[in-house]
């Protein structure tokens, strides 16, 4: 088991936070002597290749950002394209070991749990061995964080990649550690409530709004009465 099919389900393709994280997992996989084929589902030509490559793969790692609390549309399209593999599994053919990465901008893992349940069942539906799902919040911040600050995360991802190569699954303790808190504690809720009222907390949005010259229009509501707190 030494070839990994790495699928990036982010609509942003090469410029995504998902691929940054997936590449670190791939590094861990390669450290164990394996090879990696990486494809972006958002690229139409690569999408088609990803469908045919699935049937031949030993291990598939499908990573995605959380879009409206689920998989992005392009990932669902891919899953629908795998429908013949359900019949294939029923006919006794083998499907690859399946692992997932779900990353989101929310700090709590809780937001991602419903789709993780779905992905686990998807592996069962395909008759695939389930390697586990890496859940990670705070993904949007990767763009602004200095490289140094992400060092621990990159290391955690490399270890998970090594585990996938060595054991065919992610370690339970490592999955728990990388997911961080499932929900905010009462004190954090209090502090976060206060923090959300400070311009500093929203500063990354404000900066972009100002750079684009639409700061004055930030509360625009083109289809109905705007929310007034």
């Amino acid at each position, binding site marked *: 088991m030494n070839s990994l099919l790495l699928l990036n389900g*982010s*609509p*942003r393709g090469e410029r*995504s936070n998902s691929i940054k994280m997936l590449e670190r997992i791939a590094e861990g996989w390669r450290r164990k002597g394996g090879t990696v084929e990486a494809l972006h589902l*958002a690229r139409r030509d690569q999408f088609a290749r990803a469908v045919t490559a699935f049937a031949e793969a030993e291990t598939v790692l499908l990573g995605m*950002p959380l*879009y*409206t*609390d*689920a*998989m*992005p*549309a*392009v990932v*669902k*399209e891919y*899953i*629908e394209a*795998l*429908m013949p593999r*359900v019949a294939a599994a029923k006919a006794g053919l083998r499907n690859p070991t399946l692992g997932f990465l779900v990353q989101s901008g*929310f*700090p*709590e893992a*809780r*937001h991602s749990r*419903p*789709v993780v*349940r*779905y992905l686990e*069942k*998807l592996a069962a*539906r395909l008759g695939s061995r389930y390697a586990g799902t890496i859940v990670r919040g705070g993904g949007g911040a990767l763009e602004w964080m200095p490289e140094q600050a992400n060092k621990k995360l990159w290391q955690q991802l490399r270890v998970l990649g090594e585990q996938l190569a060595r054991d065919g699954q992610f370690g339970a303790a490592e999955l728990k550690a990388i997911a961080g808190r499932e*929900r*905010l504690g*009462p004190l954090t*809720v209090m502090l*976060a*409530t206060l923090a*959300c009222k400070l311009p500093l*907390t*929203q500063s990354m*949005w404000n900066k*972009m*709004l100002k750079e*684009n010259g*639409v700061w004055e*229009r*930030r*509360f*625009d*509501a*083109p*289809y*109905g*009465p*705007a*929310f*007034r707190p």
Partner: protein
Amino acid sequence: MNIAILNGDSEAASPFQAYLLKLSQKLKDRGHTVIKLDLATLNLKGCSGCWGCWVKTPGECVKHDGSATVRRAIIDSDLTLLASPITMGFTSALLKRAADQMVPLIHPYFVVEGGEIHHRARYARYPLMALLLDAGEQADAEDIEMTTAIWRRTARNLKTRLAFTAVASRDAEEVANELTLVA
């Protein structure tokens, strides 16, 4: 009451399409205004995660496609019915494509709600949401429950709630009555 039906079935002549027509008529018979959007005909380009709707053209997707029709229908409605066959255990990629382009309906700012981090509302009011699923022969009770759990969270992030889930194996008359009761 204004009801928007977002039809996520991409098959033009399925039994589910016929069911939706019957249900729309029954809702109209009860005095409701019904707009049924066939998502397959709207040329939805999908979300590329550019954040343009948050920081370039606030409240609007930067892509010019049928998604504006979907967003307008949602905000104009008292109840939005998300209608879709279940394929591979979840609602269709077509409906998901429409959902991804609902992000302009909320504001990027972070807020704390119910002890969780969410995004701020952009509109003063949002419609209730409900799911109508065609379970077909493949989907089991767990698929319906998991699909509901995901959409319950989506509804919450769209500043509303999922009122209920119905399956299209049920009598359209009964579903029309229930929809009338919830809103």
